[in-house]
C-alpha cells in the first residue's frame, strides 16, 4: 500500500483515538471511577468489544453518512476527518460540549459545499432529528429501567453484599454491550468518510469468511479507538466517575444500559431487519453522541429519583453544540479543502458531471417527473450537482425527492465490462445467477449507473430492486451494495 494512503488515513485514526479516549468513559466511567471495576479490565473489555461492534455492525450508520455526502477522493476524506477532529479538540478546549458525530456531519457538509455536491436535506433532517431524540430516548429508557429494577429488588431480598457482586458482574456485561454499541454506532464517525475511497481490497480468511475492504477499514478504526481507550481514557473515566456522574453503581448500571440500548437501536441492522419483517416502521441508523445519550440517561434517573426539574441550561448547552459544532466543522473543512487543493495541489474531490440525455429524460418521465417544464434542458451537460439542481429548480418546483431522483439518473458514470476482468472475477457476495447476468454484459459500456442496474435487472431477477417499502428495505439495500461493488469494479475514468 502506498505510504501516502496510510498518511491520509491518519486523520481518521486520530478521530478514533480521541473517541476511545473520551467516550469509553461513558461506558465504564462510573465503574472505574468508583473502584467497582479495575481500569485494565474495563480497557480490555472496551477495546475488544468496540472492535467487534465496529467490524460486525458498523455498516448501518456508515451508509447514512454516505447518503449525506459521499466523499470520493482520499485527500478529501482526510481533510473531512481532520476538520472534524480539530473541531472537537478546539471546541472542547473552549468548553463547548461537542461530539464527534456532529463534527463529522459538519465536515461532510463542508466537503459537499466545496465539491459543489448537493446535501440531501432529508438525510440531514433525519440525522439532526435523531440527535434530538437520542438523549430524550435514553432518559425515558433509563427511567423505565430504574423503575423496573426497583420493583424487582423489592420482590427479592438480596443482601447488600450479594447485590454488590451482581452489580459488578452486570456492570462488566453491560459495559461490553455498551462498548459493542459504541463501536457499531460510532465507527462511521471515525472512518465513515473513507469508505467510498477505501484503499483496501476484499480477501477471504480460511476459505469461508469474506473480510471486506470496509470491514478492514472498520477494524483499523476500531483499533484506533481501542488504543485511545488504553492510552488516555483512564483520566477521563476517573473524572466521569468522581464528578460528572455521582451515581450509585446500580444507577450507573441503568444509565450505561440505557445509553447502550440507544446506541444499539440506532446502529443495529438486525433490529431493523426484525422490525421490517414485522411490517413495523424501522429506526434510522444514525451515528449519535454517546456522551449525550449518557447525559440523557442521568437526567432521566434524576427526574425519577428526586423529581428534579429539567435542567434547561444543560439542555441549552447541548443544543448549542448541535448547531455550533457542525457549522464550525463545515467551515474548517471548507477552508482546509481550499488550502489542500490550491496550496498542496491535492485532488480533494472527483468531479461528478450530469447530463440530461434523451434517455435520462425518458427515464425521468417514466418515473413521473414533470418533464415538460424542463424540456429545454434536454441534452445539456452540467459540471456539478449544484448546477443541475439549480437549473432544475429555476424551472420547476423541486422537492428533495425529485432532486435526488434527477441526480441519480443524470449522473454520468462510465462503466465498461471488459471481458478479461469479467472472466477473472469471482466475487463471493454475488449469487451464481447474478454473476451469470453480469457476465452477459461482457463487452458493453454504459454512461449512467442506472443503465447498468437496468441491464442487470433485465437479465436476472436476483438483480431486481423491489418497490420502496419498509419490508423491502433490506433486500434493496443488499442489491444497492452489490451494484456499488459492480460500479467500483467496472467504473472507468474519474
Amino acid at each position, binding site marked *: 500500500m502506498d505510504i501516502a494512503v496510510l498518511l491520509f488515513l491518519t486523520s481518521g485514526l486520530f478521530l478514533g483515538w480521541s473517541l476511545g479516549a473520551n467516550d469509553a468513559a461513558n461506558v465504564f466511567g462510573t465503574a472505574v471511577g*468508583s*473502584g*467497582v471495576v479495575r481500569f485494565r479490565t474495563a480497557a480490555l473489555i472496551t477495546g475488544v468489544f468496540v472492535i467487534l461492534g465496529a467490524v460486525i455492525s458498523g455498516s448501518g450508520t456508515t451508509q447514512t453518512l454516505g447518503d449525506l455526502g459521499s466523499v470520493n477522493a482520499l485527500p478529501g476524506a482526510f481533510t473531512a476527518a481532520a476538520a472534524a477532529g480539530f473541531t472537537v479538540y478546539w471546541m472542547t478546549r473552549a468548553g463547548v460540549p461537542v461530539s464527534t458525530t456532529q463534527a463529522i456531519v459538519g465536515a461532510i457538509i463542508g466537503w459537499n459545499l466545496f465539491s459543489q455536491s448537493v446535501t440531501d436535506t432529508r438525510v440531514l433532517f433525519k440525522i439532526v432529528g435523531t440527535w434530538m431524540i437520542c438523549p430524550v430516548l435514553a432518559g425515558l429508557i433509563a427511567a423505565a429501567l*430504574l423503575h423496573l*429494577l*426497583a420493583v424487582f*429488588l*423489592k420482590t427479592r*431480598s*438480596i*443482601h*447488600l*453484599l*450479594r447485590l*454488590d*457482586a451482581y452489580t*459488578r*458482574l452486570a456492570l462488566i456485561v453491560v459495559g461490553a454491550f455498551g462498548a459493542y454499541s459504541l463501536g457499531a454506532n460510532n465507527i462511521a464517525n471515525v472512518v465513515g468518510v473513507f469508505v467510498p475511497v477505501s484503499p483496501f481490497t476484499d480477501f477471504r480468511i480460511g476459505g469461508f469468511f469474506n473480510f471486506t475492504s470496509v470491514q478492514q477499514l472498520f477494524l483499523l478504526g476500531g483499533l484506533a479507538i481501542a488504543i485511545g481507550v488504553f492510552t488516555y481514557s483512564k483520566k477521563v473515566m476517573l473524572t466521569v466517575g468522581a464528578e460528572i456522574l455521582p451515581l*450509585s*453503581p*446500580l*444507577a450507573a448500571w441503568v444509565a450505561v444500559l440505557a445509553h447502550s440500548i440507544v446506541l444499539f437501536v440506532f446502529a443495529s441492522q438486525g433490529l431493523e431487519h426484525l422490525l421490517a419483517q414485522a411490517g413495523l416502521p424501522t429506526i434510522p441508523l444514525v451515528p449519535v453522541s454517546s456522551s449525550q445519550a449518557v447525559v440523557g440517561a442521568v437526567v432521566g434517573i434524576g427526574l425519577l*429519583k428526586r423529581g428534579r426539574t429539567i435542567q434547561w441550561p444543560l439542555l441549552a448547552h447541548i443544543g448549542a453544540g448541535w448547531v455550533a459544532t457542525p457549522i464550525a466543522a463545515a467551515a474548517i473543512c471548507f477552508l482546509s479543502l481550499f488550502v489542500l487543493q490550491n496550496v498542496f495541489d491535492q485532488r480533494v474531490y472527483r468531479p461528478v458531471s450530469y447530463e440530461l440525455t434523451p434517455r435520462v429524460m425518458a427515464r425521468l418521465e417514466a418515473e413521473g417527473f414533470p418533464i415538460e417544464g424542463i424540456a429545454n434542458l434536454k441534452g445539456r451537460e452540467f459540471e456539478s450537482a449544484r448546477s443541475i439542481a439549480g437549473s432544475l429548480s429555476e424551472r420547476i418546483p423541486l422537492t428533495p425527492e425529485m432532486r435526488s431522483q434527477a441526480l441519480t439518473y443524470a449522473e454520468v458514470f462510465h462503466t465498461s465490462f471488459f471481458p478479461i476482468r469479467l472472466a477473472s472475477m469471482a466475487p463471493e457476495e454475488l449469487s451464481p445467477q447474478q454473476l451469470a447476468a453480469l457476465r452477459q454484459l461482457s463487452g458493453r459500456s454504459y454512461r449512467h449507473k442506472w443503465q447498468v442496474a437496468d441491464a442487470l435487472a433485465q437479465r436476472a431477477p436476483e438483480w431486481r430492486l423491489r418497490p420502496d417499502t419498509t419490508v423491502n428495505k433490506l433486500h434493496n439495500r443488499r442489491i444497492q451494495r452489490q451494484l456499488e461493488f459492480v460500479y467500483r469494479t467496472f467504473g472507468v475514468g474519474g
Partner: protein
Amino acid sequence: MAMPGRLNLFGRSRHIEREIEEFLDGVSEAGLIFQRAVRTYLSEGPSQDFRDDLDEVSRLETRGDQIRRRVEAELYEHTLIPDLRADVLRLLEDTDWLLGIFQANCYHFVIERPDIPKEFHRDFIELTETVVTCVDSLVMAARAFFRNIGAVRDHNHKVIFYETEADMISTRLKTAIFGSDLPLERKIHLRYFVERIDDSANAAEDVADELAIYTIKRSL
C-alpha cells in the same frame, strides 16, 4: 472465622454476609445475657452466675471487635460496596459500641456493687427489658438494611417507641428513688445506674436515626 485466602467474587460476598450476620447475632445475644445478668444481680448480687454472664458479654464484645475489623479490612481491600462502604462500617462501629455499653454496665455492677432496694427491682427489670428490646429492634433494622430496606422503617419505628418507653420508665424510677428515704449518696448512685442502663436505648436511637439516612442513600 478467619478469611480464607482467595475467594471468588460471590464466595467473598457470602463470607462477609455471614460475618455480618454473626456480628449482629452477637449484639442481640449480648443484650439477652445482659438482661439475665441484671436479674441475677438483683436476686443474688455479683455472684458467680453474674460473673459468668459478664465473661460471656466480654467474649461477645471481643468477638464483635474482631469481626468488625475483618469486615472493615475486606470491604476496603476489595473495594466492595464503594458507595455505601463508609455507612456500613459506621453502622457496624456504632452497633459494636452498644455491645461495649452492655459490657461496661456489667463491669460497673461488679466494681461498684450498687445496693438496690427491693421496691425498685421491678422497675430495674422492666427498664432493662425495654432497653434490650430496643437494641434488639435496632439489630433487626440493621439486618433489614442489608436485606430488605423496605422493612428498616418499621424496625426503626420500634426502636424509637422502646427508647421513649425506656425514658418513661427511667424517669419514673428516678422519681421514685429521689422520693424515697434513702440517703442522698445512694439516691445519686442508683440514678447513675438507671441512666447507664437507659444509655443503651438512647445510643440505639442515635444509630437508628443514622440508619434512616443510610437507607435513603441505599435506595435506588
